[in-house]
């Protein structure tokens, strides 16, 4: 690994750190219901949208907020499903792509609305241009907007404010965050060489004289929201490994920054909304530490490469290059795999299946923890849930009924959190066990690596990441339906339970801080938070990880 490649990663992280706070402050202001400058700029446009859609700018109850979120998402899932099912008969289909098969459409509709973008189809041959730009891109905007609305409502709850209005938040997420940033970055991608066209695939004659179909299309616009919205679904089958979807180092950098942009800024938005930036900074730094550790493990594993191959005397100065694009090299490929799973995006610029066992374990662990920043909105809500658990344990240890931001954590909140905590292990381990027992023939590798393939698929679904370990014969009804269900539950169960936690906390009378209060803005709290995340995560997934990547590494 060269000094330059490490420097490049360091610079990327520095840009990310520099952007986090200003973007966070912008987000806090953008979702504030009190009049401010941002409201004055955007409100006139939004009013028109409210008028058209019949949205009244009134705060909803917590139940209503959750119901609006789930209801509107369910309806949109159904619309996406219908379009995919009948795309063959609908316009804007120059390649004449057929209707999507029902279980695959079920999977894809949930996948895109649940911000997962697990793709059991290949973009070039599975979906029409209409599907790509209308329903898929539509879902890729609405699902991160939903996540952003959720996190804002959740933070409002923790800080004792009213829930707000889901539809107002949803529209604000689109008009004030996603559309402007996506628009600008799409243009930048075009400038970097990403195609944006409605022309069908080009036909080229190769040097050998054979005819080759080169897929293209409106990729730049798709790519921008794919990364910014932590969606991750590729326009093309091989996602950001394709030169049209990630032409060079600069586009790679922009993609990484877009993936991290919102999720790394949310701690600061939260700090601002909670009235103390320090509250958010502690969480930001804790997550950054985890990210740096994960990155280091991944880089080391990929650099050292496969000991069995190294023993054969194969030159490995460039690290393990299997499955990686030469234009990115080992460092940028490994780094991308860490970021895409930390931010739960799921875009890939390298095939995770070909990472070294430990290099492949890092993305897996990122998704299992789902707290190394995490996906758009939902990731940070998950982080706050772990913060509440950390507060609960450490509050007890200083001899007080635990309180978070001045609100007591009691039986009701802990019951809801206990349910939420169960969701992730259940959705990952149980379906994986079922798949391993009933569908071993769809798994392309035997042994530990095969186990990891199945485990990865469900972890990616439950964490709404969407990246695949590949090598899985996953376009079968079993995988379509099982991952579809896992993605749906993985997304919406915790949304409802955690909104209920927020509602319950919002109703409590805040207790003023005293020297006896356990402070949540100190380095010690950061350490407790990381400890809780790692211990709960490790205890839950240790056996599965041991039988997958760790056993694979040990037996190489």
């Amino acid at each position, binding site marked *: 690994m060269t000094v330059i490649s490490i420097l490049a990663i360091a610079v990327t992280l520095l840009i990310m750190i520099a952007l986090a706070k200003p973007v966070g402050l912008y987000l806090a202001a953008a979702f504030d219901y009190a009049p401010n400058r941002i409201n004055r700029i955007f409100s006139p446009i939004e009013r028109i949208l409210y008028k058209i859609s019949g949205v009244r700018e009134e705060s909803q109850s917590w139940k209503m907020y959750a119901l609006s979120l789930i209801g509107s998402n369910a309806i949109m899932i159904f619309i996406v499903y219908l379009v995919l099912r009948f795309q063959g008969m609908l316009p804007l289909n120059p390649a004449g792509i057929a209707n999507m098969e029902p279980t695959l459409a079920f999977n894809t509709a949930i996948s895109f609305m649940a911000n997962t973008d697990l793709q059991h189809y290949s973009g070039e041959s599975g979906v029409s241009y209409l599907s790509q730009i209308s329903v898929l891109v539509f879902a890729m905007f609405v699902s991160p907007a939903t996540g952003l609305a959720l996190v804002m409502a959740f933070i409002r709850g923790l800080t004792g404010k009213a829930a707000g209005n889901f539809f107002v938040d949803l529209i604000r997420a689109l008009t004030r965050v996603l559309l402007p940033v996506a628009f600008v970055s799409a243009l930048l991608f075009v400038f970097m060489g990403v195609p944006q066209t409605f022309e069908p695939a080009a036909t080229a004659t190769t040097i050998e004289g054979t005819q080759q179909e080169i897929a293209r299309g409106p990729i730049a616009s798709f790519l921008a929201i794919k990364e910014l919205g932590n969606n991750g679904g590729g326009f093309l089958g091989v996602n950001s490994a394709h030169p049209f979807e990630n032409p060079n180092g600069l586009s790679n950098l922009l993609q990484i920054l877009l993936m991290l942009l919102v999720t790394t800024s949310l701690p600061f938005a939260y700090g601002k909304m909670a009235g103390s930036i320090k509250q958010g900074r502690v969480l930001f730094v804790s997550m950054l530490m985890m990210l740096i550790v994960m990155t280091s493990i991944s880089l080391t594993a990929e650099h050292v490469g496969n000991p069995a191959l190294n023993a054969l005397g194969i030159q490995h100065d460039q690290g393990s290059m299997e499955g990686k694009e030469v234009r990115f090299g080992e460092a940028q490929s490994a780094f991308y795999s860490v970021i895409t799973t930390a931010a739960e995006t799921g875009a890939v610029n390298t095939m995770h299946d070909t990472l070294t066992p430990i290099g492949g374990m890092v993305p897996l662990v990122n998704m299992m923890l789902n707290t190394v920043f995490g996906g758009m909105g939902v990731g940070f809500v998950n982080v706050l849930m772990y913060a509440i658990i950390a507060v609960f344990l450490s509050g007890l240890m200083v001899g007080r009924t635990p309180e978070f931001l001045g609100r007591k954590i009691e039986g009701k909140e802990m019951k809801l959190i206990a349910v939420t905590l169960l969701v992730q292990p259940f959705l990952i*381990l149980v379906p994986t*066990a079922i798949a391993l027992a009933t569908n071993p023939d769809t798994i392309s590798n035997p042994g530990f690596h095969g186990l990891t393939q199945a485990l990865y698929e469900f972890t990616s679904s439950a964490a709404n990441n969407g990246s695949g370990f590949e090598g899985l014969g996953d376009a079968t009804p079993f995988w379509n339906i099982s991952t579809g269900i896992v993605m749906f539950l993985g997304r919406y169960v915790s949304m409802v339970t955690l909104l209920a936690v927020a509602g319950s906390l919002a109703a409590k009378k805040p207790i003023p801080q005293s020297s006896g209060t356990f402070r949540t803005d100190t380095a010690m709290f950061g350490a407790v938070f990381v400890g809780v995340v790692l211990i709960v995560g490790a205890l839950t997934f240790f056996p599965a990880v041991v039988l997958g990547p760790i*056993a694979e590494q040990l037996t190489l």
Partner: protein
Amino acid sequence: MDKIEKKKKMLSGDMLGAALRESFVKLDPRIMMRNPVMFVVEIGFLVTLLLCFVPDAFGGSVPRWFNIVTTLILLLTLLFANFAEALAEGRGKAQANSLKKTKQDISANKISSGGAIKTVPASELRKGDFVVVESGELIPGDGEVVEGLASVDESAITGESAPVIKEAGGDFSSVTGGTKVVSDRIKVRISADPGESFLDRMISLVEGAKRQKTPNEIALNTVLVSLTLIFLIVVVTLPFFSGFLGIQLEIPILIALLVCLIPTTIGGLLSAIGIAGMDRVTQFNVLAMSGKAVEASGDINTIILDKTGTITFGNRMASEFVPVQSVKEEETAYWAAISSLKDETPEGRSVLELMKKNGLPYDEKIGEGGTFIEFQAETRMSGIDLVDGRHVRKGSVDAVKQWVRSQGGTIPADLDDRGAVIATAGGTPLAVAVDSRIYGLIHLKDTVKPGMRERFEQMRRMGIKTIMCTGDNPLTAATIAREAGVDDFIAESKPEDKIAVIRREQAEGKLVAMTGDGTNDAPALAQADVGIAMNSGTVAAKEAANMVDLDSDPSKIIEVVAIGKQLLMTRGALTTFSIANDVAKYFAIIPAMFMVAIPQMQALNIMRLDSPLSAILSALIFNAIIIPLLIPLAMKGVAYKPMSTSRLLGKNLLIYGFGGLVAPFIGIKLIDLAVQALI
């Protein structure tokens, strides 16, 4: 009974025997079901028990001895947990039994409507009945003295053998059933129906019969259940994972893994911690009406304390002699002492004490044969008429001035100024005069009890604000407040003021504690989150409060707060310990499970445990014996010294978090060495 002796008796062999018996009774699944964590262990136990008799019930090939040993360890784990709970309950039961003895067969002299006295069993008395209690008789029920005055021995309830005076009217009129009248005769109006008396409530409380889970216990229990379910998912899915790899996992080994992972340590000790916490309060002679109240006391933000009796001794003591005009200080002191020679009031005695303390000489003989003039409300002076005819007086400045003038004496010009200085400082000036000459002033001061300042300092570190209530004027109140180091005070306070302060603090989201004894304290006691009534107080106060202090020591509230905190800390510390333990257990069991099929797993066997079976047994044994090892901690509670929260957290994290991570690595390794020798 001496308290230490009492405690010794509480841990007698009888109690251990009873707890041991209870441990087996509690194996009943219907009782076990109330503790989900241990219930899972019990199911595991039943499965391995079955395997002892039918080793191949699930097609396994584990040696039979392993099944038997596992079954035994699981049984022990269950018994240890039950024993902890039974032991905690046992202490209360022993106390309840001794209370019950006092209750037996009391007869009452009931006054019937005609006025005739009839002897009836105490159990027939109803609210509103009148009884007469003579010296040497037990008071048949809770009530209020309506006539007479008597000294009552309340040791049956308080453990304090010195009798207390009870009289009709005022704040000392309430009597408790089961206590004994040792002198005189009183007429009592019964205020409780049978089964509802203070003694009955006390018995049911210490017995823990009506123990309900407290809010925090419920919250923690939820977390434990959630962890248990997570591990259940982990263990149930594991055979499918290994099955894909062609590795067969044995049922008893999976059960061992499950039992090691679920939080049995805290699960087994949780109810014992709660009961022991209540019990610690009781041992402290404070009766908490619910566990919730004890828990709430750990959360207190503000404590409202009465000045008199709590913060200060309540009587004014001489602190300084202030001469006037040309008089020397020694002279002032001398005559002040003479005036107090036969004065038995606390003020009088304090003058002589101050003399001794300052090493000032006075001649006691002068007073011999003199006539003592007692303090009277009209004269507002006391003193002595000496044999040589001189009249020595001390008293309120105005009264003494008048007395001197009436004898034709002059008033020193600086007397009023010096008096004002004392008053400004919160003291009371007493003038000292001999016949027509005024010799100066005695500065009387309400003295803060020793150690109070340090206590308030501690409370500030615990994040608790103290508010002092006093009937004194604002100046005096401010001085005492400054001296004692309380954060705030209310001067010239009326009972309504206390409620107002409590409401104001509560409106800010704070939890407020207060102590009180009078009937007019009752509303405030009810309003406070933690209200501690003095046992010497009125029935109304005791009814309104959620704790009763049997020793009637208002400053005990501070210890109650510490006990409440300790209760929560013990839960938190043991939970953290329990969860942190799992890391080492994983490193013991997981490599052991797969080492045969995947020899490279040896790399994860970082403890270098001998063999797969010994590794699993060692983890399981550690998991079992850690419960009895921690019983003393659960009973006594985690050591608590007031310090800043971050230091406290740091300390507990180090001991129970980091310690919990490391201890099992050492423990399991040591057990493995022993097990290795055996198999």
